[in-house]
């Protein structure tokens, strides 16, 4: 019973802390001011605040107090009526987070990589160590933000069970899906139905087993919506949208190495297709280069070798001898995994339906280009594996494909909106 209460209040705590610890006045000016939009944007900003704080060897208790008291102050100051009138979607968001959190609390099982890398990093942060103490753990070149957030919400506010930290992952997952469904041009009830359908087809316990793929899935979903809004000129101030994309990119590169490409491709495509002015293009270029530079510099300070990127071991004669066999293996398993990832399967089918039904526009070019870049990325990543390619593909390909699967949901929103027009 105690655990049920802890879960109940942990969700409230995460929601209120993220929603109120960041002043929403700036965001409201530039964006649609629905609470869900504000929550999602605050969540991306919140992740970046935690990231920056994690670079300093200062106990996270101070950060907690600052965030807690600022959220308390802003909560007191806020117009509660504006945000707190009953809405069925908030109830459902809470309900889904609570239900999945209960499952996590009983299942408890950590994934293979979670036990091997991510949870050890989480323990290190939980025990008040900092980024530069991670050197003695395996896979030092694996980024740390997901583990840092896990440890933060494990410790605050209850400091009781590790799975309380993983509730943040559930929170992010459910909120990002509901946020994405705002893309559909329809009434609230239909949007909720779409969100429930997406949860139904994408949910799997393994997403919350401590592995980090679900966070990238959510960031890709968030970025996809922003890019879609820039392309369809729905955003009043593209400059702020571009900054949000960069913040999402910055979070992603500190969660998993694939984030660099999966959201990097979006930044690249928006540069070409986005009708951005010179200042906005400069922000993207300088912002993304700066984010990558900071990551490389901090890795240099950490003394971590890029042990996951040993090209001298992979780019040899054997690589060229086996390339055909390995390509066949990757294509075979990709086909198998597409069938078990309905978001990709449906997305690819709808991509061709859209091409057949409607005139090719910027959104369609964006979807096709991203899909092609995504396929090339997967091929390159697995062909250049240090370990046996077939083994890597069997254990890792589905998870990498899942990370970008959220992008393909855009095809359904595009089709729906076009049919509505």
């Amino acid at each position, binding site marked *: 019973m105690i655990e049920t209460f802890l879960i109940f209040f942990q969700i409230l705590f995460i929601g209120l802390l993220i929603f109120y610890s960041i002043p929403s006045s700036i965001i409201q000016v530039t964006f649609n001011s629905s609470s869900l939009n504000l929550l999602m944007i605050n969540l991306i900003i919140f992740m970046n605040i935690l990231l920056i704080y994690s670079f300093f060897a200062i106990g996270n208790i101070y950060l907690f107090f600052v965030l807690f008291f600022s959220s308390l102050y802003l909560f007191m100051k806020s117009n509660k009526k504006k945000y707190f009138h009953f809405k069925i979607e908030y109830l459902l968001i809470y309900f889904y987070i609570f239900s*999945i959190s*209960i*499952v996590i609390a009983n299942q408890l099982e950590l994934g293979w990589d979670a*036990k*091997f890398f991510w949870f050890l990093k989480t323990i290190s942060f939980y025990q008040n160590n900092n980024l530069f103490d991670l050197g003695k753990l395996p896979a030092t070149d694996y980024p740390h933000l997901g583990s840092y957030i896990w440890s933060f919400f494990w410790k605050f506010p209850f400091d009781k069970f590790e799975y309380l930290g993983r509730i943040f992952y559930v929170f992010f997952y459910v909120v990002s899906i509901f946020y994405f469904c705002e893309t559909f041009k329809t009434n609230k009830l239909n949007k909720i139905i779409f969100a429930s359908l997406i949860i*139904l087809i994408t949910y799997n316990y393994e997403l919350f087993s401590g592995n980090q793929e679900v966070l990238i899935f959510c960031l890709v979903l968030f970025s996809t919506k922003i890019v879609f809004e820039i392309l369809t000129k729905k955003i009043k101030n593209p400059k702020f949208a571009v900054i949000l994309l960069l913040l999402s990119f910055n979070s992603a590169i500190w969660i998993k190495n694939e984030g660099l490409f999966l959201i990097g491709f979006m930044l690249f495509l928006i540069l070409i297709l986005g009708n951005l002015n010179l200042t906005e293009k400069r922000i993207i270029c300088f912002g993304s280069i700066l984010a990558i530079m900071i990551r490389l510099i901090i890795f240099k300070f950490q003394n971590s070798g890029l042990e996951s990127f040993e090209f001298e071991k992979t780019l040899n004669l054997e690589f060229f001898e086996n390339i055909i066999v390995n390509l066949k293996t990757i294509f075979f398993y990709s086909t198998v995994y597409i069938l078990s990832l309905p978001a990709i399967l449906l997305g690819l089918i709808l991509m061709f339906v859209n091409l057949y039904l409607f005139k090719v526009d910027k959104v369609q070019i964006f979807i096709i280009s991203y899909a092609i870049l995504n396929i090339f990325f997967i091929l390159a990543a697995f062909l250049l594996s240090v370990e*046996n*390619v077939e083994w890597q593909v069997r254990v890792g390909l589905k998870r990498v494909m899942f990370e970008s699967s959220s992008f393909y949901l855009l095809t359904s929103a595009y089709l729906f909106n076009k049919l509505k027009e």
Partner: protein
Amino acid sequence: MLKKNKFKQNVSLYLILFFLIFVSLIKIDFFRQFYFMYTNNYDQRMINKYGYCGKDSYGFLMDLKKKYSFNKNPIILNSKVIPLSTWVLYDSNKEFDKYPKIFLNYQKNPSLVFKNYNNQFVSQGHVQLTDMLKDITINTPNKELILDNKIIISKFHNKKKMIIFEKKINGVISKTKTISTNFKTDVFNSRWGNFLIEIDDFDYNKNEIISIILNFRNKYNFNEEDIIFSKENCFYVK
């Protein structure tokens, strides 16, 4: 009144939503998970999931944590093909020990069984922490089998067959007799994939061999007096 009308207009959508929520709850197995969470405390659930001495051996490691204080993070070795259980006892403020002291699911004499499948013998399961192929046992349905053939042990790597070991066998084979090999190798400590055994010029259709067993030496050996605490196949040693 307005709200009622709105509800009546959308009643089919509300029904769809209700149905979706219900299906989602069934998909995530909410009701069963909630029941088990409610009836078992955290430690019981952890032991149910990770085993006492088996799988990650969470129960055994937690017993060690209660009974002994570790100055360094112990190196924990597990004979099962799962990630190391380091996370259970890990203290980030301590260094790691130099030598392994905790052995989970320990097998003093690990062995790998091969069964006949499509004119070759294919390994069933995996072994870990071995450093020597000591000998080979051939199980025959009859008392004795006369062999004058070469036995070849191999593995596929990137779809290419790699021969690991070969030996000419010449003589009478019986259930109790083992073929000594004493071949020092750690290549059998594989987490995935199967090993194959082929016998040259052998008629597999006669079913004269039920199975072949490779017997290994464990890389880590200890005596009774080295053991500080043990339960079943889990050991904490000096």
